[in-house]
């Protein structure tokens, strides 16, 4: 068995001038302070890639101070598949000395350091890198006139980068114009002059070689570029979800802000409630009224919604619950990523209250999983969790524009009269809620939905047999759902040494790791689980094909050494070969981290 590839491309012989001019893939990191607008500069690059049939993935950090403070924005652009934001940078732009010191270690050997020579003095003795100093601050002020101060640095740097990578300036200028459309004329012009100043800078004099991206295949469908929270919101709109209620919390807020702003255009409504208890209750009021509704939050708020979600399970009222996970427990690490809310989503309710739990694997999947979640909630009249996370919420990806005409779901309210045999809680079938306004035949009993145990008509009961039957009714509909979930496909080796099992946003690094390891001859495959409760059937057959099964997740190994999904799989399959790779540093997995662990002899 070959030894693992050292992810660090070795040898000091490797120098920028040896790099080939035509590249398929580049990782660019901008490091400065959050005021510097590096996010928007990075966003332009991402949007450009989206418009150029290239794949793109971004990564950013938010300072823990309330405003200002160091922050980075990283963008990886690839002609061909981009699965992660990259383990190391090909091109690092630093605005300040602290940015340089903090991030130089992330620059790949032979990588290019572009620094603001007005603020930064790099250690040019370190021969591993190529140094390009540009008086960014000064030149920007010059270009824009003193008034603008050094605002516009970000766009100036965008110009520089456009030059270095021969980016499509026409498309970029268009993006800049669109971005500031509606704003004062002068704003657009200032931005454009900053961009041109950067682009005009003779960087060629200091950089031996400039780069070309191999062109993407523009024949395919157009791409849309957005972050995971936008994708969730748009997915809900496509799913015909027209009502919701929530309360602000990082990193969930932007989902509710988008819905609050967009829904009125669709004749719908999203309400900011006084707290999460009110939010989930109001959402249930919407759903009870016949309008499938969404609520969401991050860990602290989801904890507060626990009781009401239990009511939804018991009363069998559909509901969508979005948890954009962050570091926990308690207030925890509000701006870091973690996958430590899986247990709560699956087991958090008191009593036997089974819940459907789904997790999107990419920004694109955020859109599609919202559609699926709504379908399941409607069909099975039950609460459905979507477990996203801080990394998906804040990162930008470009993906093929969804085919809306075929995907859009209606939002119609069904209050068609019910027949004389209507029962709110039939034991021989799945509950189909009859909202207020539904006419029943004269003399029949209108339904009262309830959180008390009940008979088929919703009357409270203490009958032992009915509690047995109703508990089974609420559980077995999830078992029925399980039979409809396709067994996930295996990526990479279909059998052999190691199977990597992932869920949620670890999809990218895991699959890139498999890809890399396969090229090096390792027999590694991966399955990604989007349906966490109920689990898809048939996983045991996949596990059987591999010698080791390693479940990879961003949470703690817990008391007995197994992560949250790993434990759930072990409980179901009792297969001792199920191992666990976990971490709790609040950062996304690097490809290297995964390979180093699973391939270590």
């Amino acid at each position: 068995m070959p030894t693992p590839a050292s992810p660090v491309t070795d040898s000091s012989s490797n120098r920028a001038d040896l790099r080939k001019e035509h590249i398929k893939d580049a990782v660019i990191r901008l490091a400065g302070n959050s005021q510097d607008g590096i996010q928007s500069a990075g966003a332009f690059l991402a949007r450009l890639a989206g418009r150029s049939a290239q794949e793109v993935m971004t990564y950013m950090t938010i300072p823990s101070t309330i405003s200002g403070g160091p922050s980075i924005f990283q963008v990886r652009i690839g002609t061909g598949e981009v699965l992660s934001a990259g383990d190391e940078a090909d091109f690092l732009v630093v605005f300040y000395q602290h940015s340089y010191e903090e991030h130089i270690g992330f620059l790949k050997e032979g990588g290019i350091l572009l620094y603001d020579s007005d603020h930064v003095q790099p250690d040019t003795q370190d021969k591993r890198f190529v140094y390009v100093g540009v008086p960014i601050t000064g030149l920007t002020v010059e270009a824009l006139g003193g008034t603008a101060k050094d605002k516009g640095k970000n766009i100036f740097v965008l110009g520089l980068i456009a030059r270095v990578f021969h980016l499509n300036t026409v498309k970029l200028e268009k993006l800049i114009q669109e971005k500031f459309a509606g704003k004062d004329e002068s704003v657009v012009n200032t931005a454009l002059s900053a961009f041109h100043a950067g682009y005009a800078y003779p960087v060629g004099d200091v950089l031996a070689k400039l780069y070309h991206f191999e062109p993407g295949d523009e024949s395919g469908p157009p791409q849309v570029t957005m972050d995971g929270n936008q994708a969730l919101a748009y997915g809900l709109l496509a799913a015909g979800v027209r009502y919701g209620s929530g309360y602000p919390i990082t990193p969930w807020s932007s989902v509710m802000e988008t819905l609050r702003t967009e829904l009125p255009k669709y004749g719908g409504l999203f309400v900011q409630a006084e707290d999460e208890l009110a939010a989930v209750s109001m959402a249930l009021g919407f759903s009870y009224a016949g309008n499938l509704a969404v609520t969401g939050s991050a860990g602290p708020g989801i904890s507060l919604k626990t009781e009401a979600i239990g009511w939804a399970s018991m009363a069998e009222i559909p509901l969508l619950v979005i948890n954009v996970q962050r570091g926990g427990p308690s207030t925890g690490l509000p701006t870091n990523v973690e996958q430590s809310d899986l247990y709560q989503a699956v087991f958090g309710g008191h009593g036997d209250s089974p819940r459907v739990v789904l997790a999107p694997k990419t920004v694109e999947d955020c859109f599609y999983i919202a559609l699926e979640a709504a379908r399941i909630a409607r069909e099975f009249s039950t609460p459905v969790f979507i477990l996203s996370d801080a990394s998906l919420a804040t990162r930008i990806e470009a993906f093929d524009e969804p085919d809306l005409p075929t995907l859009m779901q209606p939002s119609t309210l069904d209050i068609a009269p019910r027949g004389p045999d209507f029962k709110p809680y039939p034991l021989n079938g799945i509950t189909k809620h009859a909202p207020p306004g539904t006419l029943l035949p004269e003399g029949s009993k209108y339904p009262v939905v309830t959180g008390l145990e009940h008979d088929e008509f919703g009357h409270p009961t203490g009958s032992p047999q009915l509690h047995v039957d109703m508990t089974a009714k609420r559980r077995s509909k999830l078992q029925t759902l399980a039979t409809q979930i396709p067994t996930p496909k295996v990526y990479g080796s279909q059998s052999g040494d190691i199977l990597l099992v992932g869920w949620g946003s670890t999809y990218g690094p895991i699959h890139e790791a498999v890809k890399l390891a396969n090229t090096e001859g390792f027999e590694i495959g991966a399955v990604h689980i989007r349906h966490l409760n109920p689990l898809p059937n048939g996983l045991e057959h996949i596990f059987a094909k591999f010698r080791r099964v390693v479940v990879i997740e961003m949470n703690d190994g817990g008391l007995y050494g197994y992560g949250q999904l790993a434990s759930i799989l072990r409980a179901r399959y009792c297969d001792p070969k199920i191992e666990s790779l976990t971490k709790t540093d609040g950062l996304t997995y690097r490809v290297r981290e995964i390979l180093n662990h699973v391939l270590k002899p």
Partner: protein
Amino acid sequence: MSTESPAAPPLTKKALTADHPTWCPGCGDFAVLASFYKMLEKRQLPHQNIVTLAGIGCSSRFPYFVNSHGAHFIHGRAVPFASGVSLSRPDVHVFLFGGDGDGFSIGGNHLEHGARKNIRLTYVIMDNFVYGLTKKQTSPTSPIGYRSKTDPTGAIDQPVNPIKKLITAGATFVARSHATQVNHMIQMMERAHDHDGFSVVEILSECVEFFPGAFDAANPRKNGQFQVIEEKTWDGSAEDEARHDVTDEIAAYKLAGLPFPGLFGVFYDAARPTKNALEQKWINSSREKVRHASDLELLQASFNRIK
């Protein structure tokens, strides 16, 4: 969007009656239920568009006893639940029922924000000054000195003044009644239901099991006094001067401060745009801005902006 069918049969007490109440014999809530039936009979609302909602408590079992669409939600969260129904279904009539614990203790904040936002619904609070269903603990309206299982030597916390709380919170219709006064209850419920906004009727409803005689002081049959607020008729007469102006917040707040058993009737009744209307206004203007585009067109346009 109303689904009222022309051929609808008249709404009778019989049609409205559901399970026999599980309340203790003599519980004040029976009379509240009877008054609610009567009020519905008088109003003849489309049967399928009546919805009765509640939290948890003896009084909150109300929906089971009314044959209408209904929901028995969780303790203290019925106001936001009802708000969801009200805000998304202008065609249904939302009636909410509950107790003093459900409404003023665990549910106090929701009551307040619902009132502030003036969400259109009618909320009947059966106030018995005690936790009934859980068998005699102190409630936020229990008077000082009341002996309960959680205050064996007598309650010591100053109780909530429900009417003051409601007025301050922003409820636009605030009334008070007594479970022994059926006609008065019916009147109050009618006016509450007719009011376009967050309307609340607090009804003193005796818990014969755990706080018998609590409201005798206002029960003529127990030689108490049932004193009703005289409302201004605006006839310019001298005596009208002395009467209560239900649109005067300060006056209402003052009246609410009278010692127990205080006054009954309408304390406050003012017009203020409902959240229902304000959100609808925004929805309408948004729909116009987008020229009533279809859902597909709207989402497509959003995508086009991020291509």
